[in-house]
């Protein structure tokens, strides 16, 4: 029934769930500069001023970051762009025209700036062409911000968002709106759309390539996040089929949630710690509802987006305190800003390869004010002594040591100020870079805990860009090299005299197919998106640690991903499937 219909699009199932609703097609790349009459000059004027303000904030963010790193020339360009936003002649002309001609700001901004670009393009001087491009950049930024405001106000009601790609900056818009599902052209399993959808506990289907072309704004669509399907304007048969599924899903879900209070133990009584990953404050309730025993990863980059700039010490302190208090007596692991790469900042610094670039701890060590502010806020917030600090993208020991120096500094300041009852925060390192994995033992000597970040670790080990859906199939959790590396990290850490906790916080931790393998390798602490906790617990409650260990030993001897995958599927089908409510059952006939 389903496969033969022509209204079905197939993509990557990246967040489980089902949704049936009207859709909202959000095409960001398309800048609408058509001429439109405006009815209310004052409103349009305010929109323009808001867009200018927002653009300025965005640029100031970049400008204040280690400007010397960007080079004088680059820094001057940013400064000039910021000045353009305040240019009295330019802005004055734009407003005059808006008033006299009663035309929309996007059109006039484009028209006016284009005039200057024309002069520059006509010049013989080479550097004038470069300037024209800088003007193009600021012009587009202003227009984009004029448009975003419109988008934001238009998303009312519960819709399914269909878009080309979701950037971290979009999460602010969508987390607050009542979105029912995400459908995107680009992206893979660990793209931001997928991660956000899982955080919000809504389905997502990504990597469809032409969803924004095929789906019309306002179409009613079904999103099947289990099977990666999107059905456009479903017929009666399809509607009936999915309505039943949606009902069943909600029954199964509420049953699963009842297991929140049961501790996660294997059949032969091995206790497994289940923690949650936190991006958005909105997730804390779900965290507790689904029985998280703490937060294994607070992604603090979200703060950048929310405060449209550097969150100052006090803003951060308030946020961290809030989280720590709400989770007490459980622990909260706060990862210091892992910016750059595919993450937060609207960085115009065009690194050829941002993944291997200026981000994580190396970025923070180059921006000591940023680092110190954050550490101070975290340390101050540690009043209940349940906060730990996690360092992202560590490649060498001296990075850990330098962060420790800053922690010591901040701790000393607090002590001198009379805060004698606050304890120094414990520190951990992410193992997500191969060099860190190889040096697990040395790293473990230096810190209190380790957190394995499989998302990046797998990327680096297999040289695969997770966001690139052309090769996303090469990102293999069960590649023998990945399995061996995880085994090495876990077993090395556990073999030390020093008690160092090792936990896994990447998406692999939530993949129930991987669970027996990971437990068999000795992992006893998982940190995942709170929405996925019930399923994971179900699986843990139904496996035997000794059997999982045998499974892991077997997999370590296999030489191909296919063999390991097949072994894991076999284990799952024979030992687990029949015992649990299978939420991933095939809905195809």
């Amino acid at each position, binding site marked *: 029934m389903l496969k033969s219909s022509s209204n079905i699009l197939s993509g990557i199932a990246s967040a489980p769930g089902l949704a049936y609703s009207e859709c909202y097609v959000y095409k960001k790349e398309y800048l609408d500069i058509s001429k439109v009459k405006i009815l209310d000059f004052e409103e349009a004027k305010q929109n323009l001023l808001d867009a200018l303000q927002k653009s300025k904030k965005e640029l100031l963010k970049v400008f204040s970051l280690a400007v010397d790193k960007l080079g004088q020339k680059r820094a*001057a360009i940013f400064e000039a762009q910021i*000045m353009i936003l305040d240019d009295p002649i330019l802005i004055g002309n734009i407003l005059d025209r808006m008033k006299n001609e009663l035309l929309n700001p996007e059109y006039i901004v484009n028209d006016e700036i284009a005039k200057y670009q024309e002069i*520059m393009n006509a010049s013989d001087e080479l550097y004038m062409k470069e300037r024209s491009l800088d003007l193009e950049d600021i012009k587009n930024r202003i227009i984009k911000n004029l448009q975003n405001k419109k988008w934001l106000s238009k998303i009312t009601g519960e819709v399914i968002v269909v878009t080309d790609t979701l950037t971290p900056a979009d999460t602010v818009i969508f987390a607050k709106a009542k979105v029912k599902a995400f459908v995107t052209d680009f992206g893979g399993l660990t793209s931001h759309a997928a991660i956000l959808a899982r955080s919000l506990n809504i389905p997502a289907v990504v990597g469809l390539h032409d969803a924004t072309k095929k789906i019309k704004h306002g179409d009613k669509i079904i999103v099947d996040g289990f099977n990666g399907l999107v059905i456009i304007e479903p017929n009666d048969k399809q509607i009936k089929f999915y309505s039943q599924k949606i009902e069943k899903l909600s029954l199964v879900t509420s049953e699963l949630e009842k297991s929140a209070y049961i501790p996660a133990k294997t059949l032969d009584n091995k206790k497994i710690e289940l923690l949650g990953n936190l991006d958005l404050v909105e997730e804390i309730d779900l965290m507790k509802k689904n029985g998280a025993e703490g937060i294994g990863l607070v992604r603090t980059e979200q703060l950048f987006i929310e405060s449209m700039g550097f969150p100052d010490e006090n803003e951060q302190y308030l946020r961290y305190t809030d989280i720590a208090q709400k989770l007490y007596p459980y622990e909260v692991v706060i990862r210091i800003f892992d910016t750059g790469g595919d993450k937060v900042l609207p960085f115009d610094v065009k690194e050829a390869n941002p993944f291997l670039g200026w981000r994580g701890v190396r970025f923070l060590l180059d921006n000591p004010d940023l680092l110190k502010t954050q550490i101070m806020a975290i340390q101050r917030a540690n009043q209940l002594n349940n906060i730990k600090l996690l360092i992202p993208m560590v490649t060498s020991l001296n990075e850990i040591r330098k962060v420790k120096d800053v922690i010591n500094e901040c701790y000393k300041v607090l002590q001198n100020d009379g805060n004698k009852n606050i304890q120094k925060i414990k520190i951990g390192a992410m193992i997500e870079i191969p060099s860190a994995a190889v040096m697990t033992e040395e790293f473990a000597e230096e810190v209190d805990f380790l957190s394995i970040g499989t998302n990046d670790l797998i990327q680096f080990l297999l040289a695969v860009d997770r966001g690139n859906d052309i090769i996303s199939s090469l990102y293999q959790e069960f590649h023998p090299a990945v399995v061996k590396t995880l085994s090495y990290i876990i077993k090395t850490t556990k073999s030390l005299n020093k008690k160092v906790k090792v936990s896994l916080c990447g998406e692999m931790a939530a993949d129930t197919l991987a669970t027996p393998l990971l437990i068999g390798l000795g992992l006893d602490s998982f940190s995942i998106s709170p929405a996925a906790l019930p399923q994971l617990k179900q699986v843990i409650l139904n496996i035997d640690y000794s059997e999982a260990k045998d499974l892991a030993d077997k997999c370590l001897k296999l030489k191909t991903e296919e063999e390991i995958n097949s072994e894991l599927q076999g284990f799952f089908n024979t030992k687990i499937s029949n015992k649990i409510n299978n939420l991933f059952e095939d809905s195809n006939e």
Partner: protein
Amino acid sequence: MIEKQVIIVNNAGLHTRPAAMITKLASRFKSEFYIVKNGVSVNAKSIIGVMTLAAAKGTELTLVFEGEDEIDAAETLTDYFNRGFDEP
């Protein structure tokens, strides 16, 4: 009104960095300030306007100041040009 003739003396000419500085300096004064090149006049308090001035090393420009603090404005800005924008 004060008019001053200046020549661009630095190697890189009137690129973005000095353009930004010129506008910043100009905004400190109440006087109007225009830069004239080949008969075309640009309001120097407008950064985007100054950016359109392609002025390589050796270019001759006329700086025009008009207002109550024109003497100070003329001195500050002319000096900045003559110093080659504090660049080689």
